[in-house]
């Protein structure tokens, strides 16, 4: 069965109110076409899980600007002023998570673990309501796993099995998010033949990927 589908068919997997993981760091490594297709499809009330809210007009920032997001689970929103506007108006819920904790919660979700113990956040607001567990004399917070209905992944070279090679630091959250969603869609900048990515160089093996769309990289 071919994983290659149209962008429109790919976003047909998404419904209002779903949770969506989006790889990327300040827009670098966002799946830009899939973001636009979500807007075009009129989807709303989404829970977005991403490192940040990107920057005005770029990547997933557009989902916030178009008021498609009800909740953000993220580490940083400072470069997207719309987040503060909607947050202060009570229209957007924001759960701030330390970046390294966010990444490990997603890894736990994808790896079948019951969470992670991290020293990050001890003694801060982040610790509120979370169990503190002492291991060998050091305190750690129990942070629970995080999964999503859909993950939007951006890959530079993607072969027809869905194997992915990333360019530059557009890699960031993409590999880990590809492990932690029920439906994983990769947007390929370049669709290549099997074998064009040497097996040793595959970063995300295609078994994590459900669907491939083309036309990536703006």
């Amino acid at each position, binding site marked *: 069965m071919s994983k290659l589908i149209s962008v429109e068919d790919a976003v047909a997997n998404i419904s209002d109110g779903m949770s969506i993981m989006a790889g990327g760091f300040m*827009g670098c490594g966002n799946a830009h076409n899939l973001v636009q297709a979500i807007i075009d499809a009129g989807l709303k009330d989404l829970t977005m899980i991403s490192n940040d809210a990107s920057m005005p007009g770029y990547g997933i920032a557009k989902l916030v600007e178009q008021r498609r997001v009800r909740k953000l689970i993220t580490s940083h929103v400072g470069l997207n002023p719309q987040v503060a506007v909607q947050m202060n108006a009570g229209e957007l819920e924001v759960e701030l998570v330390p970046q390294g904790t966010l990444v490990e919660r997603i890894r736990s979700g994808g790896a079948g673990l019951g969470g992670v113990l991290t020293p990050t956040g001890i003694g801060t607001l982040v610790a509120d309501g979370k169990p503190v567990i002492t291991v060998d004399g050091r305190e750690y917070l129990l942070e629970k796993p995080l999964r999503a209905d859909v993950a939007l992944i951006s890959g530079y070279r993607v072969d027809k099995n869905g194997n992915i090679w*990333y360019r*530059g630091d557009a890699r960031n959250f993409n590999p880990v998010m590809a492990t932690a969603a029920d439906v994983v869609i990769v947007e390929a900048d370049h669709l290549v033949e099997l074998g064009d990515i040497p097996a040793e160089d595959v970063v995300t093996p295609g078994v994590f990927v459900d669907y491939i769309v083309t036309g990536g990289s703006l």
Partner: protein
Amino acid sequence: MTATTLDRSNLKEIVARRVARELRDGDFVNLGIGLPTLVPQFLPTDVRVTLQAEVGMVGAGPCPEVDADPRYVVDAGGKPASIRIGGAFIDSVTSFTLIRGGHVDATVLGALQVDSEGNLANWIIPGKMVPGMGGAMDLVVGAKRVIVAMEHTQRGEPKILPRCTLPLTALGCVNLIVTEMGVIEVQPYGLLLTEINPDLEVADVVAATAAPLRISSSLTVML
């Protein structure tokens, strides 16, 4: 002389130049956004450090040495960046394994407040500024050495306090505070002024510092 006579035009340079002397050849370092990014230009030629960027670089810039495409290579602030020849792009899991796992020798970052116990507040002003912590909470917990590089006061108000009043980034994480007025070590008994800007008197620094400040018996001039 008093604090008001300090030339403010090169205040950031004074801090960055002094922080650069804290780094050792071969160090693996993460620099926060803003003032800390000025540090590399003041490193002596025989001191080479490898820069880590949360977004996923080992061996980041500081200046473009290889072709970089801003769609694919950005720094921790989302700005176009580059990686040095011999560097490595890594994913976020590996990036924070380096950061949290004690593999980073030093991190240099700004602060809203620091206190006598080395507690740090630099990620939120409730009701005013809520940018999020990004990687800061992990960095200050995981780096072997945490150096705060900042202006000594905020519009004349002390930032070095007996106890932070803003929500904390982490408990007791700060090792060294470098400002335009001097260098302050965080010791088990509190804060120790070890170096002072030659244009200032000790009384100027004490007046601008709300936390109790011990003065080192071997106080030297800040270079």
